[in-house]
């Protein structure tokens, strides 16, 4: 009751202030123009399909490449040091660089080399760049998952004679992936929105189309329409992620693990 009342009052006051602002009529004309909204929305939605394609394809590639990076970083022992170093350098590098810079440098730079056989398609570069950048983040999520699998699981697998890679593949990674699905989805909410960045290398997707329509009508309403499209698509995904996290927490509290591992400190990582 109190929550409902306070919410109504709060938003009521907010709307009152905005609607009575001196610039409200001009604002309405520039941002909330009904006819322009009706005109631009179908065009925007049709271009949004490009973002969706980009997002879906990139997601598959990121899941695979990110996992590869995480597994490389988690391989113990001196033999794998060069691979670990390489993967670590990669992840550091791509997390350090602003995504928009990578998109501009690779998306414009590589085609400029005019190497025979290298594709010129902007969509291709958009896909590659998003994969490169996001894999660095996603690999860290995977790695957190891999680290969260208790070393005693590896010990049990190795004691059966499984190799390091078999242990990763059959025992550690399957458990790790289950645990990190919610944070992975969280990263994909970010990816979904960052698909607009590739408009800077000439991919005509929803944001590029928004700019075109806005320039043609001297009006900002298309931006509002585009914002609406993202909100409608992203919020359900965010809710779904929260639901998964809550379910996961419920499961953990219900207690899958029964054994107090008083010995756990002795199960040091496998050398």
């Amino acid at each position, binding site marked *: 009751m109190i929550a409902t009342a306070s919410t109504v009052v709060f938003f009521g006051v907010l709307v009152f202030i905005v609607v009575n602002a001196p610039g409200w009529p001009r604002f309405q004309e520039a941002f909330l123009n009904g006819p322009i909204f009706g005109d631009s929305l179908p065009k925007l939605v049709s271009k949004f399909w490009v973002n969706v394609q980009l997002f879906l394809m990139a997601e598959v590639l990121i899941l695979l490449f990110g996992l590869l990076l995480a597994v490389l970083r988690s391989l113990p022992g001196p033999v794998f040091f060069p691979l670990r170093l390489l993967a670590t350098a990669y992840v550091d590098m791509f997390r350090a660089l602003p995504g928009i810079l990578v998109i501009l440098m690779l998306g414009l730079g590589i085609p400029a080399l005019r190497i025979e056989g290298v594709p010129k398609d902007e969509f291709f570069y958009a896909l590659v760049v998003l994969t490169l950048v996001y894999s660095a983040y996603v690999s860290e999520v995977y790695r957190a998952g891999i680290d969260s699998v208790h070393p*005693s699981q590896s010990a049990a697998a190795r004691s059966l004679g499984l190799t390091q890679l078999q242990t990763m593949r059959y025992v550690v990674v399957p458990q790790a992936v289950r645990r990190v699905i919610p944070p992975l989805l969280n990263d994909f909410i970010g990816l979904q929105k960052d698909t607009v960045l590739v408009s800077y290398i000439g991919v005509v997707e929803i944001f590029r189309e928004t700019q075109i329509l806005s320039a043609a009508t001297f009006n900002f309403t298309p931006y509002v329409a585009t914002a609406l499209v993202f909100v409608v698509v992203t919020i359900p995904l965010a809710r779904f992620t929260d639901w998964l996290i809550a379910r996961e927490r419920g499961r953990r509290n219900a207690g899958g693990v029964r054994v107090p591992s008083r010995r756990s400190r002795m199960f040091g990582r496998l050398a």
Partner: protein
Amino acid sequence: MTAALSVQGLYKSFGELEVLRGIDLDVVEHEVIALIGASGSGKSTLLRCINLLEPIDAGRIVIHGEEITAKGVKADRIRRRVGIVFQAFNLFPHMRVIDNITLGPRKVLSQPRAACEAEAIALLERFGLADKASDYPDRLSGGQQQRVAIVRALAMQPDVLLLDEVTSALDPELVAEVLNVIRELAGGGMTMVIATHEMGFARDIASRVCFLDDGRILEQGPPAQMLSDPQQPRTRQFLNRIIEAGRL
């Protein structure tokens, strides 16, 4: 008789902490060794070293005449021959019981799935767990989980089975079912090294009891003599504490 397992001059430290300080132990085939001693005396570490889960600092470990700690020996190949069962079971929670058991035979020995499963079912039946084959580990009681863990180790048909305080994490009423499994294995001639706090059990099934103290085997002998008439003061002290706790 040739030794099924021979540990010679084994040293192991974790950083500054010296855990094993010159262990010598020969185990002949079909022998059951009970390792007793206080927590921190090195029992678990010794078993983990024999399974090559821990690299050793000095000494040799020989299994059926083959030095497994020699340079260039593939640890994965040795681990197939040495089974280990842990205190905390360490079953794979994302796999059904049957898959837990067949993972090793399928992936390490490359046997066909059907044969592995038939083998696994036979083992589960032998230990009264046949109806649990399709369950996930978290549906099982601690005692059942530990019996599955033993079956998982047996499925690799190891030469030697190492048991690391396998009843210490169990509720008291579940201890017997696990001990019965081990008793049956001992009766079947399985060569075993058992780290345990169950002194009564050690007296029943061990061929020899070894008392570990501060990283060394201080005293060893037949269970009756070791548990009732130990020679070393440290052993007597340890056993007195066990008796005070009502565990012997």
